[in-house]
């Protein structure tokens, strides 16, 4: 899997910061240039550079900020070093602005606005730390923390800490739903609330295939997996949001098990899930056995050996065995997405026979 620099530096749009694009062009010997035809671009030519975007001036927390037009408030905040919480936002997906943890106050707007999707406007006056902002963020986190198992969602746990969200004040968690019950809730059919408990989405984990598990007790309904499975990456549309209100859930067609669905096991939904609701079966089993130990894991960067696309892989290795595979979000080849082979086809590495003597 060597890359000679030649092919990469002809790539018309090397993503900034991708370590794989190396070697300054000036380093080529003349004979190489004369004898070797120029490498073909590794992906279709990029569109012509966008015209320079006009700058927009706005105020964030009293500081005047200048940022290219078309940027979001979130981008403007990040450029200012203002750490804005996000749960449903991911750089490589269309913003759905549903979690509402990123809300900010914009002078003149009756309600708070989602920083992740709202575009900056000239003269905007944004407050990211007002009482109203902190209150809404805290409540959103309390709502999530009191209804969803966030134990494998470190970022959400961090926000809960930061905003002082008291997830216990809605009462003890209600009894979990039996397997499949939440999948059968019909829209509009009321279920009387429990008197002394807080309803949750807790339910048994769905283990119906050898590759990954779906633990919807941990699902915050951020829509990321649906986007990754559909329009934003995979174009398979094996999963969608079903049901309504608090009964809304991620579901296959008619809630069938994954092997009976349209799923092609690309695992791109796992790659974007912020809470660990979607998890490699390998990780799930190791966690169940108590052997999962992130601190003992190393990451090896490589390129997928299966086909000619050349997807960037990060192999996560524990005890000299590959435990999960991801792809960097900023890879110009994958945007973080893989197919079943790159994502799950690693067992052969561990199953090599003795080989020729």
């Amino acid at each position, binding site marked *: 899997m060597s890359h000679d620099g030649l092919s990469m530096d002809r790539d018309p749009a090397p993503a900034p910061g991708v370590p794989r694009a190396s070697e300054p062009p000036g380093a080529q010997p003349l004979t190489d240039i004369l004898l070797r035809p120029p490498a073909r671009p590794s992906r279709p030519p990029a569109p012509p550079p966008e015209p320079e975007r006009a700058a927009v001036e706005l105020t964030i927390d009293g500081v005047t900020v200048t940022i290219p037009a078309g940027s979001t408030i979130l981008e403007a905040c990040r450029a200012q070093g203002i750490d804005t919480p996000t749960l449903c936002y991911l750089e490589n997906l269309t913003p759905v602005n549903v979690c509402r943890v990123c809300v900010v106050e914009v002078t003149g707007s009756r309600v708070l606005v989602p920083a992740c999707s709202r575009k900056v406007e000239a003269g905007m006056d944004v407050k990211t730390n007002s009482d109203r902002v902190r209150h809404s963020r805290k409540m959103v986190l309390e*709502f999530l923390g009191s209804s969803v198992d966030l134990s494998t969602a470190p970022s959400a746990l961090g926000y809960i800490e930061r905003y002082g969200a008291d997830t216990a004040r809605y009462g003890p968690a209600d009894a979990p739903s039996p397997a499949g019950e939440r999948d059968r809730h019909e829209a509009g059919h009321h279920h009387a609330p*429990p008197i002394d408990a807080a309803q949750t989405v807790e339910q048994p984990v769905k283990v119906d295939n050898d590759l990954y598990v779906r633990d919807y007790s941990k699902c915050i309904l951020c829509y990321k997996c649906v986007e990754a499975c559909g329009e934003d990456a995979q174009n398979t549309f094996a999963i969608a*949001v079903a049901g309504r209100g608090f009964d809304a859930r991620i579901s296959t067609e008619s809630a069938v098990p994954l092997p009976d669905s349209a799923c092609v096991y690309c695992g791109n939904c796992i790659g974007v899930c912020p809470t660990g609701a979607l998890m490699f079966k390998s990780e799930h089993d190791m966690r169940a056995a108590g052997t999962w130990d992130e601190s003992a894991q190393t990451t090896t960067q490589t390129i997928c050996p299966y086909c000619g696309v050349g997807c960037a892989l990060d192999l996560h290795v524990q005890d000299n065995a590959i435990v999960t595979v991801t792809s960097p979000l900023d890879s110009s080849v994958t945007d973080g997405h893989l197919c079943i082979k790159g994502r799950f086809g690693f067992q052969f590495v561990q199953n090599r026979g003795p080989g020729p003597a």
Partner: protein
Amino acid sequence: MDLHVIGPLASPAERAAVDALLGPPESGWRGGQRDARTEGHVARGGHEARSRRDLLIPVLHAIQSRIGWISQPALNYACRRLTVPPAEAYGVASFYALFATTPRPPIVAHVCDDLACALAGAGDVAADLERSVGPAGEPVDGGETTWLRSPCLGLCERAPAMMVTQAGTNPVTFVAGPVDAVGVERRLEPRTGGSTESGPPPIPQRGQPGLRLLARVDVVDPSSLDDYRAQGGFRALARARRIGPQQVIEEVTASGLVGRGGAAFPTGRKWAAVAAQPAEPHYLVCNADESEPGTFKDRVLMEGDPFAVVEAMAIEALAVGATKAYLYIRGEYPLAEARMLGAIAASGEAGLLGDLDIELRRGAGAYICGEETALFESIEGKRGEPRNKPPFPVEVGLFGKPTAINNVETLINVLDIVGSDDGVAAFKAIGTEASAGPKLFCVSGNVGRPGVYEVDFGTTLRELIDLAGGVSGGLTLKAVLLGGAAGVFVGPDALDVPLTFEATRAIGATLGSGVVMIFDETADMVAALTRIARFFRDESCGQCVPCRVGTVRQEELLARLAAGRANGARDDELVLLREIGQAMRDASICGLGQTASSAIESAFRQPQLVAL
């Protein structure tokens, strides 16, 4: 898209239901007979099929009303026909309360137990039904029938009300009220036709001189174009064509007409914005989803004066430059739907609509689809999830195009404004500067003559209640719910407030969709608040966290208070209620979440209203 349809084949009846709407399938690719000679490896239906996604909800209606529920094979067949991924179609089907994705008996009584019906004893009806028929949703009569609780059916003047849906080759939908449990059971008998038990229109002012919006209701024959024309119909459209779009917009703007759907946005400004958009085509949508509890004015207008709605839509289409219009009507209005279909067809056949095509789309049991962007999603064949704004519909609306959307009552106002040279002046002479014109109010609850009333803006609440016969049974007034479940409770101290947008706003209330629901001294306010909380919990689309979970936490909190089991001190619970409300108001995507705590919080601000 990688369309992957797996599973058993649809039954002949399921296929017939879909084919009756879409015609026979063209190829095996689309679920028809395979023919190796003509098909080979050619996939038919790429672009053309994808562009039919918007037929998904009509197709789901077709299956539901033929079979009584939507099975996976039936859904799969619909997906093949329309090139929709099955998971997405399931997401859509499971979003709407009138669609069943688990087996449901063919005959269903939807028994309203919402606010107005509860004041009229719907709680007893439901309790009696539980005893005599069984729990809601339980199949009885050998799996042929069942009953379900329903949110407001928009029949508040006939409380307690019900709707029956009967699936089959001749599906029947009808409404009835007032009913008791025996009446509900009687209507579970299979019927062969006769779609609606229509009572007289709830217009106590019928025939009074000076009515503008209600002038023709229950006077004109709603199925006769000739009668409508004989009473002045289609003259406003003729004048609009004469003066042209620009002048129409100027007149509507000058009249000061603002939207009657709840948001009170200036209508002329909306039309001008759409007319000015360079993107083509422009769409027009008439919002007849009317699902705010306590609201039934649009139903009365459509049932009683359907040609007026068609004429007003034609005027708006002319003004905003649209040749395609949709009327989105809630699924629980069978009579209004039939009358509107008749009026649209008759007007078109008579050549009165020019190049305008009006299509009726039927909702499927989702209050949220009254929100304009959720309504667009629904017409497009999707889940009724509101969009984030901006961009606003005037720029990016239905199918991503500039769209003018207006409420039925808003449109009816246009006829008099544009109908004559002095229409603007006459309109402005009514009401106040900021609230011009006549207004319909839906008066219901513990009141002498419930119904739709037309008064001038500025009429006081007291005058309106007197007009409706006062509190029934000579009892004293405890509270009035203004604006519906998304509105505000006011006490007797507010009786002298003039009913205008500005005056109600000044006392922290709202006119909303024109609901005026009367609660007498004996009314169970805790039950009413609990019902409101339940309504929002059930109707939240579930997209955003503050509303999806906030409405659940709000309902739990009220259940605790109602049971006398406050978590800690009662005042702490009330603080928590306000904190939940504040987050829903501030951080929710749409008006549903933003107003889900409004009525409940308003009641708790008035200690004399709720003794909890």
